[in-house]
C-alpha cells in the first residue's frame, strides 16, 4: 500500500501556477528525494503534504485517507526546515521536546525519547544549551532531532543541508541516510543539489517548472534519462550535448569532420531519424584514451585540447566537437606530455540520442 499518494495536484500563488498537476505515489519506508532547480516548486509540494499550503486542485492521501482538509497538526507529519526553525528562547532539550509536549506525552517518556534521539545524533551533551550557542552543524542536528523524536507517519526535509559548508554536508548526508535505515520511516527530502539526490535517494523525483519530469531510481535516471533536461541535470560535470546528423551508420557532428559510429544494436532505433538532426549526449566519463579502449563499441575522435583541469584523481579536459564545447573525464596519466591534440574514444553503448525537436531521448 502506498503511504502517500498525490493525485493531479495543482497549486497557485495568485496567478502564479507553482505546481502544475503532480501525480506521485510514495511507498512506505522509502527515501524519496524531490530534486529540481530553485523555484521549480519543490518546497511548495512538500508544504502541501505537510498541510502548510492549501491546494487548489487534486488530492493528497496518507495511508488511504484524503487529508486535503486536515490541519497540519492532525496529519502526523514531522518536518525539518531549511533555516532550522529552532526557538531561540528554548534550550536544545526544550526544542526537541516541543513536539512531544504538544501531544501531552508524559514527562518521563519525553526525557527518554529526547535522550535517545539526541544520542542518535550525538548532541546529548548540548541539551542544556540555547540555539545561539551552537554551530551550524549542531543546529542542523537539533532540527533533525526535533523531527525524529516523534513517531510520525512521514518525515519531510526541506533542503536541510543547504546552509552547511561542503564537508559538513557530506557528513550529514551519510548521517541522514543512516537515520533512515535505523528508523525505517517514509522520508521525503527536498534538494536542488543533484549529488545529494543521487547519493541519498531510493527514488528520485525530478521536478521541472511545477511538473514531474521523470522519476525512478538514481541509476535509472542517470543511465536512462527520459529527456534532455534530466540528462543534463544529473551528473557533474554535466553531460555533453553534441549537435549532429544521422547518416547511414554514423552520426556526423555538425561543422566538423568528426563522426561517431552507431553500434549495431542501436541502429534500428535510429532508422526513423535517418538524415535528420539529432543531439548526442555523452557523459564526460564515457570518453577515454583511444589506445586504451580498442573495441568495436568505441568510436574514435581526434580533438584539440583547450583546457585541462586536474583534480588529483581525475582530470577534466575541455575541447570542441563542432560548435559544441565538450568535457572529458580522464585519468591524469592519460595526459602525459603536452600534446594539444589527443585521440579519444567514446563508449557508444552508453551514449544517449535526443530528438532536438521534442528534446526526448530516443
Amino acid at each position, binding site marked *: 500500500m502506498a503511504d502517500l499518494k498525490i493525485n493531479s495536484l495543482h497549486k497557485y500563488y495568485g496567478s502564479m501556477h507553482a505546481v502544475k498537476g503532480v501525480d506521485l505515489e510514495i511507498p512506505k519506508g522509502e527515501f524519496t528525494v524531490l530534486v529540481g532547480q530553485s523555484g521549480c516548486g519543490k518546497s511548495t509540494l512538500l508544504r502541501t503534504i505537510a*498541510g502548510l499550503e492549501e491546494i487548489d486542485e487534486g488530492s493528497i492521501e496518507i495511508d488511504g485517507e484524503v487529508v486535503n482538509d486536515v490541519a497540519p497538526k492532525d496529519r502526523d507529519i514531522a518536518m525539518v526546515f531549511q533555516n532550522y526553525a529552532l526557538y531561540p528562547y528554548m534550550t536544545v532539550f526544550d526544542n526537541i521536546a516541543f*513536539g512531544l509536549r*504538544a501531544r501531552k506525552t508524559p514527562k518521563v517518556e519525553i526525557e527518554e525519547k529526547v535522550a535517545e534521539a539526541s544520542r542518535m545524533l550525538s548532541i546529548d551533551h548540548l541539551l542544556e544549551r540555547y540555539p545561539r550557542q551552537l554551530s551550524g552543524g549542531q543546529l542542523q542536528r537539533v532540527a533533525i532531532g526535533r523531527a525524529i523524536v516523534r513517531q510520525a507517519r512521514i518525515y519531510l526535509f526541506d533542503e536541510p543541508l543547504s546552509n552547511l559548508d561542503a564537508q559538513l554536508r557530506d557528513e550529514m548526508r551519510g548521517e541522514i541516510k543512516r537515520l533512515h535505515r535505523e528508523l525505517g520511516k517514509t522520508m521525503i527530502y527536498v534538494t536542488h543539489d543533484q549529488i545529494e539526490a543521487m547519493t541519498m535517494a531510493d527514488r528520485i523525483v525530478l521536478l521541472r517548472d511545477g511538473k514531474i519530469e521523470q522519476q525512478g531510481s538514481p541509476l535509472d535516471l542517470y543511465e536512462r534519462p527520459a529527456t534532455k533536461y534530466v540528462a543534463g541535470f544529473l551528473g557533474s560535470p554535466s553531460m555533453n550535448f553534441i549537435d549532429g546528423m544521422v547518416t547511414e551508420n554514423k552520426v556526423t557532428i555538425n561543422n566538423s569532420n568528426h563522426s561517431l559510429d552507431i553500434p549495431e544494436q542501436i541502429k534500428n532505433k535510429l532508422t526513423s531519424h535517418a538524415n535528420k538532426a539529432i543531439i548526442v549526449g555523452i557523459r564526460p566519463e564515457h570518453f577515454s584514451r583511444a589506445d586504451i579502449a580498442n573495441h568495436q563499441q568505441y568510436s574514435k575522435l581526434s580533438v584539440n585540447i583547450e583546457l585541462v583541469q586536474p583534480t588529483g584523481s581525475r582530470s577534466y579536459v575541455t575541447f570542441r566537437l563542432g560548435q559544441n564545447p565538450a568535457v572529458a573525464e580522464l585519468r591524469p596519466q592519460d595526459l602525459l606530455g603536452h600534446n594539444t591534440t589527443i585521440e579519444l574514444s567514446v563508449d557508444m553503448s552508453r551514449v544517449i540520442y535526443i530528438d532536438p525537436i521534442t528534446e526526448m531521448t530516443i
Partner: protein
Amino acid sequence: MKTSHRKKIKLALRYIAVVALTILFLFPIYWLFMISFKTANEIYAYPPVWWPETLQLSNYRVLFEDGDAATVGNSLIVAGVSTIFAMILGTICAYSLARFKTGGEHLANWIISQRMIPPIAIVFPVFLLYVWFGMVDTYFGLILLYTAFNLPYVIWMMRGYIMDIPISLEQAALVDGYTRWQVVWKVVFPMCRAGLFATAIFTFVFAWNDFIFALVLTRTDVATYTVQVTHYFGGQSNFWGKISAMSVLGTLPIFFIVAFMQKYLVRGISLGAVKG
C-alpha cells in the same frame, strides 16, 4: 600613542556633553520634586531655594487626607486595564493582519490612519454618546475609549513585530501538533516579548498622560490625576505645593515602569526601527 591620546580627549568631551544634557533634562524634574517639599514661603522666595530647609510632606498629606490622591489610583486603573485590553485585542488583530492578510494589503494602513485623528475632533461626539448610554464618569467609559484609541497603534506596532518572526518557526509548531492559538501563545508571544512590552509601555503612557478625554468624560467618580491637577489653578492664586505634589505622584509610576522595563523598551524600540 598620539591617536590614543586624542581618543581619550574625545571620550572626555563626550562624557561632558552627556552630563550637561542630563542636567538640562533632569532639572525640571528636580525642581518639581523640590517644590513639592517646600513651604509656601520657600516656593515664593527670591533668590530661589535650591534645597528646602526640611523635606516637609504636608503637601502630600493634604492630597491624601482630602482623597485627591485617589485620582492617581483612577489613572492607574483606566490606563492599566485599557492597556491590557488593547494589547490582547490588538495583538490578535495584528496576527490576523500579518499572517492571514486579513482585509488585503491596505487595511493595516487604514487602521493606523485612525490613530491620526486629533482627540479634540471626536471627544464631543463621544461625550454626547456617553451621556446617552450613561457612561460618563465611569471606569468602563474611559477604559473603552482608551482601548479604542490605542488599538490602532498596538495593531500597527505588533503587526511589524509579528512580520519579523520567521514564519517557519510558526509552521514548525503547527506541524509539531499545536493549534493556531497555541502557536500565538507559545511562539509569537515569546518571540516578540520585547516588542510587546515596549508597545504596552507606550500605550500605557498615552492613557496615563491623556487630559482631554478625561476632562470631558469624567466628573468626580473617576477623575484622573491630570484632571485633578487643574483644580489647583485658582482664580486668585495657584496652589503650587499641591500642584507639584500631585505631579510627582503622577510621575512616579511612569518612572518605575520605565526603570523596570528599560531592557525591553530599548530592545523593542530598536526592533521596530530596523523594520522601519
